[in-house]
Each structure stands twice: as structure tokens, then as C-alpha cells.
């Protein structure tokens, strides 16, 4: 239209032919203000300063990293965390143990709906406090029903448990056949041999396909920059676990990889005042979870009909 026309006027065969002083100033003013507007509109990118370092940009895929390269990556993460939070963390890359497959069992008879697991998880896994990211959602349903679509998760009574209701905490079910892994276009999430589906926060492009694919609403997206108070940082970190995340990446429950892969129980289990949560190695016949699956009325894998085959079981005492 008009703007290109005035620029095109500068025909090389007749230099300055139509270029009056006025049109030169005019064109310059248009160009200058246009460029300024462009620069101003891109200014939010300035806030991304520490969001992309060259080191991370050229980092290789997790499974292709040699141990030396991994050590470098872990050092970089420690440096970044220290810069941002002023705490030197201990970041490890923990591999799955041989002969171990994790299974979680949750006793619906015992759960009182106190939500302590939710907050112990946030604390352990360095989740953002504002905005709030929580891996566990506790659903309240009336006795005699199991309609998850109609479940209430904003209940706030003076005291739990309430008469006539039961509570069902839902988190990542660590499926044997995980839909979230299938849809990831960049293989930033995968299932490990101990059954934990992990996310590489450095590889995730934030497309949120996995969030859409998950039938359990278990995946959480960092829509804004996560914020954690310095004094609440858990310095014991794992690469595929609770190291701080960035804006624009997906995260979810990973069975507290930084604890369970060194033999400890997950944080949500240890805080449960009612002892409703049980965790262990299903390949070990003497483990609690093996005992429960053998002897208890294990009634569901949640949404079992979808064929996702969760490693998270709900059971009753009686």
C-alpha cells in the first residue's frame, strides 16, 4: 500500500528523483516509529533473561547424555538454583533400581480428607506457591457413589471427615500404558523401568498435549513463572524429580523420585496422619503393597476401562 510505494520510489536508475526532503522525513519517521513499536512489543522477552542459557540450549537429550555430560548438567542446575534462590542444592541424577517396580496403594476407608498429603508434596517437590501448583487433588464424594465428574474438591468444613462422605486423593497414576507419553511430540516424558513416568523439564516444549491426554488430570503446567520462597526450598533434588521448574514446562507427581530411588518412602505417605497411603516394590512379595494386593479388597484402578493400567490402587479395609 502507501508505505511500500514511497519506499519503492527510490528507483536506482534515477537517484533521489522523487525523494523530496518532506517525503524523506516522512518515510524516516514512519520507519523509526514502526521499529520502536516493534521493539516495544518484543520487550516482554527481556523478562526471559535467565530462561534460556546457551548451555541449556545446546544440551543433548537426557538418554544420550554421557555420565560426564550429565555431571556438567547437574553442575549447571546447581549453579542456576543457587543464583536464583541463594541455596546450594544437592542435585542428583538417580537411575531406577534393578528388580524394582513401584506401586502405590491408597486405603479409602482410612483417608479422612485432611489434604496434608497435598501440602507435604508441594513442600518436598519445590512446587510453585504463587501461582499454586499441586500434584494431588483430594475429591470428596458422597457415600455410595463414585461419580468423579461430580466430585467436590473445594470442600472446607471445620472438621474432616464429614458424615456421609468419603475422600479420594488423585495424583499421577503412573500408568503401565501411559497416554501422556504417547502424545509427547518431543519425547520429553517417558516411562522408566521402575514404573515412574518422568518429565525432562529441559526438553519439554510446553505444548500441553500430555495434559490433554491424561485422563486423571494429573499433569500441571507452569503458565507463569513459578515462585518459591527461598526458605521453603528443598535442597535435596533430582534431575527428573523436584529441581525447580521454569515457566512453560509441564510437571507432575513422580513418586518423589529423589526419595524413593534411594529407598525412602514418598513425602505424601509419611505425612498421612491416618496411615491411608502405602507404597513399595510390587516385585518383592514381602512388601506392604504386595500384601495389600494379595489380601485386600482392591476395588479399582481409577478409570480402569480406559486400559491405562495404573500402578496406583485404591482399596478398602473391609
Amino acid at each position, binding site marked *: 500500500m*502507501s508505505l511500500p510505494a514511497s519506499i519503492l520510489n527510490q528507483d536506482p536508475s534515477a537517484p533521489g528523483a522523487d525523494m523530496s526532503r518532506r517525503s524523506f522525513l516522512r518515510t524516516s519517521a514512519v520507519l523509526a516509529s514502526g521499529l*520502536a513499536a516493534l521493539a516495544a*512489543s518484543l520487550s516482554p522477552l527481556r523478562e526471559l533473561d535467565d530462561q534460556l542459557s546457551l548451555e541449556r540450549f545446546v544440551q543433548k537429550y537426557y538418554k544420550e547424555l554421557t555420565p560426564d555430560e550429565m555431571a556438567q548438567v547437574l553442575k549447571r542446575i546447581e549453579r542456576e538454583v543457587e543464583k536464583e534462590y541463594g541455596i546450594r542444592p544437592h542435585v542428583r541424577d538417580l537411575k531406577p533400581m534393578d528388580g524394582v517396580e513401584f506401586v502405590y496403594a491408597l486405603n479409602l476407608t482410612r483417608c479422612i480428607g485432611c489434604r496434608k498429603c497435598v*501440602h507435604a508434596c508441594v513442600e518436598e517437590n519445590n512446587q510453585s506457591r504463587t501461582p499454586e501448583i499441586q500434584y494431588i487433588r483430594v475429591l470428596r*464424594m458422597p457415600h455410595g457413589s463414585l461419580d468423579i465428574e461430580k466430585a467436590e474438591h473445594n470442600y472446607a468444613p471445620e472438621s474432616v471427615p464429614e458424615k456421609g462422605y468419603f475422600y479420594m486423593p488423585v495424583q499421577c497414576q503412573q500408568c503401565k500404558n501411559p497416554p501422556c507419553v504417547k502424545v509427547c511430540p518431543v519425547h520429553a516424558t517417558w516411562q522408566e523401568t521402575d514404573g515412574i513416568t518422568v518429565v525432562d523439564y529441559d526438553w519439554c516444549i510446553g505444548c500441553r498435549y500430555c495434559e490433554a491426554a491424561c485422563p486423571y488430570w494429573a499433569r500441571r503446567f507452569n503458565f507463569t513463572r513459578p515462585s518459591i520462597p527461598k526458605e521453603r526450598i528443598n535442597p535435596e533434588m533430582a534431575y527428573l524429580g523436584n529441581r525447580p521448574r521454569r515457566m512453560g514446562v509441564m510437571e507432575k507427581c513422580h513418586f518423589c523420585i529423589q526419595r524413593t530411588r534411594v529407598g525412602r518412602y514418598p513425602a505424601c505417605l509419611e*505425612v498421612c496422619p491416618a496411615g491411608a497411603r502405602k507404597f513399595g516394590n510390587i516385585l518383592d512379595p514381602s512388601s506392604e503393597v504386595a500384601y495389600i494386593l494379595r489380601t485386600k479388597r482392591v476395588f479399582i484402578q481409577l478409570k480402569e476401562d480406559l486400559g491405562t493400567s495404573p500402578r496406583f490402587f485404591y482399596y478398602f479395609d473391609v
Partner: protein
Amino acid sequence: MAGDPLTDRKPANDKTAWALRGLVVLFGVLTAAFLLNLWGRSVPLRPIPLVDPSFLDTATVRRSYANLVQAKEDLSDFDCYVCHEKNKPPVLRYDAKQNLIIPPEHSDIVMGHGEHGRNNNCFNCHNETNLEQLQTRDGRVVKFQDSPQLCGSCHGPTFEDWEAGAHGRISGYWDRKLGPFKRQDCVNCHNPHSPKFPGRKPAPGPHLLRGWFKPSATAATGH
């Protein structure tokens, strides 16, 4: 020069000039707007209050006799013979409805073990000949530290679950080769005189990114 139709036609050129002036003004306004960040400025998130540390506490609901011994704490509550007389079993008194009359010295005890007040005899569990010990119904004497044995003498299936780690609280290491684990006793959660697990205030529910949920009053009845 003749190749450029816009400069050839006077009226069109005029229009161009006006359009350009308009554009300059528009761009100027846009620049000012962008520089002052008049729109697209992210509304600061309302800070969500940090959760009360009591909700992160992994301590048990109660402390057992064994805990008190271990922590070398005051055990005077278990020093029965400061008041009671040795070799003289205390006499239990009942009202007309066969409810135990609790003496004022034991007013902290709520008799709530079992339905309908049927479990109303102290010596169902306490040893009348030695009050500093417990006893099962079949006469086995149990120390206070070993109270799960007493509980298990009636609650067999639950005791079995507890031994297998399927009932009650556990902490520490799931991999017993890598570290210790701790299994809590029955009385760490259950008050033996009133064993129903107490209710408590729930931790705050989820918050939205912007705005707040309205906690719905009792939502649906489910029928």
C-alpha cells in the same frame, strides 16, 4: 518513473500523503502505548498465603508410652501407686445404666471404646493386680510398651495388617536393606479409651491462578 502509477496520478498521491500522515500518528500512538505498557501488562498475581506448617508436620496424633520413655519425659501419669494402694484392686462403680462412674482423678478419660458402652470394665485391658501393666482377656500380662500385643488380642485381622505394614503409619525406608523404617504403635493414633480417629481441620483447598473458588456449601446429596 512512469512505471510508478502512484506518483503519476495526483489525487492518488494526495491520498498516499494523508495515509502516511495517519500512519505516522498511529505508529506514534502505538509506540507510546507500548513503551508505557498500557495494555498487555500482566496483572500481578495475588499472593497465595503459605500453608500453615502444622499441616506439614509428620508427627503422630498421640504419643505412646514407648515414645515418652524414649524421650525421657515425665512418666508420672503412669505412676499408678502414687495414689493407688498396692495389692488392693480399685473398686469400679457403676450408675443405674451400667455406665462406669469415672472418678474425678481420671476425669480426662472418655469411655468410648466399643459401641453402646459395653466395654465398661477397666480391667478388660488394665491389670487389676498390677496397675502399671496391662492384661489380655486370657490373662497374658503385657507391658505398656508392648500395647499392640494387647490390642491384637481382640483386633486380630487389624493386628495382622499392622504387622504386614498395611494398617497404620510407617516412615523411613521402604527398602529395608538401605535404611531403617519405623512402624507406629496403635496408641500413636488411637486413644485406647476412645479409639475412633479424631476429626481435624482440613488444610486449605486449591486456589485458582486468578480469583478464588467459592467453597460450595454441601454440593450434591448424591441421590
